[in-house]
């Protein structure tokens, strides 16, 4: 008993302090960070910092507001240190929701910007990463979008687009393995300002290695690319022009909800060392709107299915030719060649080869539902 008491007292004496405490009241949480080129080779950092409102303590629920701050530096860490001199409190990057890269900056090697994020354990690796249409600074300077603080709004837009298969689910963490992989490239969501002074996803920025190629895919095209790469969320929506012969525009289109069923990517190596790839996709489709006709008979359904298949495949071919133009091996054909034909891979310069190989997409659909009417 006496022993225990002594032990407890010792514990009390030695275990009172904590070296690593980090109290919320002392910190300034950064929630959105944008990087741009400053011109003289330095980085220009725009930071959205979340602070409690001055007069909010009386109202019970503390209100918060955004403060946009700018800083410069040769490296992200230096610009952060410059920023820390200004911020009233400890600058905390561990809750960053989104990182934005300016378009011009993204065209250079982007890994050096992220190195510090991977190295320092407190950074949030699950933060989203996007490319700005123009400068990152312009987006964050909006401060409030649709009555939401800009970084929150940005995150919401990204998340809902992810759920609709408009853009891939990318975070700082998920990009890293691909940056390091020679046999695969990636794309980042591209976000710009809309006419209503809101934010808008304008497409998918295609990267080659660590650099932005300057070539974007539109939203519809991005969805197709995601489906080709087996990356879709629960479903993807398409507006397809299946009846170009109709005069009224509204009658030309069908709107479908597509659900993934089967995905198959095969690599072939011909005798003369030519690589070709074939992507076979099977989708289940719900017809959401087909103003032209009803779909009561089997024959009509078959004709429509055929038209949808053709239209989707045509689009897929276009998307693939765009990725080849950008030299962005989004489907990771390179890493499959590396895995299955290592000898061929050793001889190849994949950057030279990818734009020249033949990739054949084949999309097959099956209409399984037409809504509550036929």
């Amino acid at each position: 008993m006496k022993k225990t008491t002594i032990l407890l007292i010792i514990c009390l004496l030695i275990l009172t302090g904590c070296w690593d405490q980090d109290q919320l009241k002392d910190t300034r949480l950064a929630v959105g960070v944008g990087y741009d080129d400053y011109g003289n080779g330095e980085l220009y950092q725009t930071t959205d910092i979340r602070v409690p409102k001055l007069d909010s303590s009386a109202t019970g629920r503390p209100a918060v507001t955004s403060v946009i701050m700018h800083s410069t530096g040769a490296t992200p860490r230096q610009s952060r240190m410059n920023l820390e001199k200004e911020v009233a409190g400890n600058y905390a990057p561990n809750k960053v929701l989104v990182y934005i890269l300016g378009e011009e900056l993204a065209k250079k090697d982007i890994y050096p910007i992220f190195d510090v994020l991977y190295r320092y354990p407190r950074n949030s690796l699950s933060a989203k990463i996007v490319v700005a249409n123009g400068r990152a600074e312009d987006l964050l300077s909006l401060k409030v979008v649709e009555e939401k603080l800009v970084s929150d709004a940005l995150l919401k837009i990204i998340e809902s687009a992810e759920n609709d298969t408009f853009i891939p689910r990318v975070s700082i963490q998920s990009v890293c393995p691909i940056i390091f992989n020679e046999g695969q490239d990636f794309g980042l969501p591209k976000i710009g300002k809309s006419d209503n002074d809101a934010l808008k996803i304008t497409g998918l920025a295609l990267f080659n290695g660590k650099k932005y190629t300057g070539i974007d895919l539109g939203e519809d095209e991005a969805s197709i690319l995601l489906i080709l790469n087996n990356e879709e969320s629960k479903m993807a929506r398409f507006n397809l022009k299946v009846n170009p012969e109709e005069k009224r525009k509204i009658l030309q289109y069908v709107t479908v909800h597509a659900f993934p069923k089967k995905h198959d990517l095969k690599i072939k190596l011909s005798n003369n060392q030519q690589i070709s790839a074939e992507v076979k996709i099977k989708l289940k489709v719900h017809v959401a709107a087909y103003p032209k006709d009803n779909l009561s008979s089997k024959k009509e359904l078959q004709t429509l299915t055929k038209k949808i298949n053709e239209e989707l495949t045509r689009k897929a071919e276009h998307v693939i030719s765009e990725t080849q133009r950008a030299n962005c091996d989004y489907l990771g054909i390179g890493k499959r060649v590396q895995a299955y034909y290592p000898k061929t891979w050793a001889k190849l310069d994949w950057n030279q080869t990818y734009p020249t190989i033949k990739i054949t997409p084949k999309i097959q659909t099956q209409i399984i539902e037409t809504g509550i009417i036929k």
Partner: protein
Amino acid sequence: MNEKSITLNQLFFVIVQAQIGISLLSIPFKAHKYAKGNAWISVIIAGLIVQIFVLIIWMLMKRHKGKTILEISQTVLGKYIGNLVNFSYLLYGVLVMSNVVILYADIIERWILETTPKTVMIFLIIATGIHLGKQNLRVIARFFTIVNVLVFLLFVLSFFAFSNNLSFTNLLPISQSSFTDMFKGSTQVTSALLGFEILLFIFPFVLGQEKQMLKKMTSAIATVVIIYLYFAVLTLATFSQKEIAIVPEPVLYMLKGLNFRVVERIDMIFLSYWIIPMTTSFVVYLYIASSAAGKMFHKGKRKYPVWYLSILVFGIAYFFSDAIQIQTFNHYTAVISLIFIFGIPLFLLLLSIIFKNRGIRA
């Protein structure tokens, strides 16, 4: 005899806990250095190698029923050389303990507590270790059995990693590294499988037939190898080749990237409870070193050596601070350990066969 007996199932859990610990976090990284994407094959090879070691230990222990290595060495080599061997096991125990503590403090400093002085962490680890290590074998074995729940928890956490984009093509092609490289990789994994040498010290205290014990030992090794294999494959599929080469703790890094609505930094939560399996490795070697010291200097009692050996470890651990030193220390510990898990048992076994268990003098 100062130790109480343990059951066969407890033997299984003691071996599993002795092996699993801090090294689980870095398996694919170390093996990947040599074997590249074939690191998972290295894990299997290492498992087979360790199985051979265990077989040698088993044959040795079977020949000398009711004796630990400390007594066998004296029977076979005579009192003086025997004591020398026992003393070397003492030093080995201290060496590995220091290694465990150093790695442990280092990993916690880098991942969670950046500004906390290492001395404090080393102190806390050793203090906890003493608390368990001074108990008798049965208590230790019971505790190790409970701790296995945590391994199960790790599995549950790892399921979330399947929400990442896994690309299993990273594991191919098989020809990406030569067999020599795979073997080199497996020597790295072998050091992660260390801990089974506790068999040399607890074998006589297990209740059961020798054959049953061999079965339990084999299944323990197999369990650990399967767990390692699972994590090697999972992390290799998560990270690409060049990335894994710069991530020393791939399992932690993988967990860090996961994100849930309520919880972030799963790696911290994980590391906080993984401290327990890491401490069990410390306790295993504390047991080894203190048994050796007890046998030689204290008539078989481990009470005193537990304390002064721990203080010695504290002193050693105190001097290692920078990353390169730690790496070198870790490397040499792994090399030296081969003598103790393989060299000495084999040597003793051969001598016992030649001299029909009676020893050199007889």
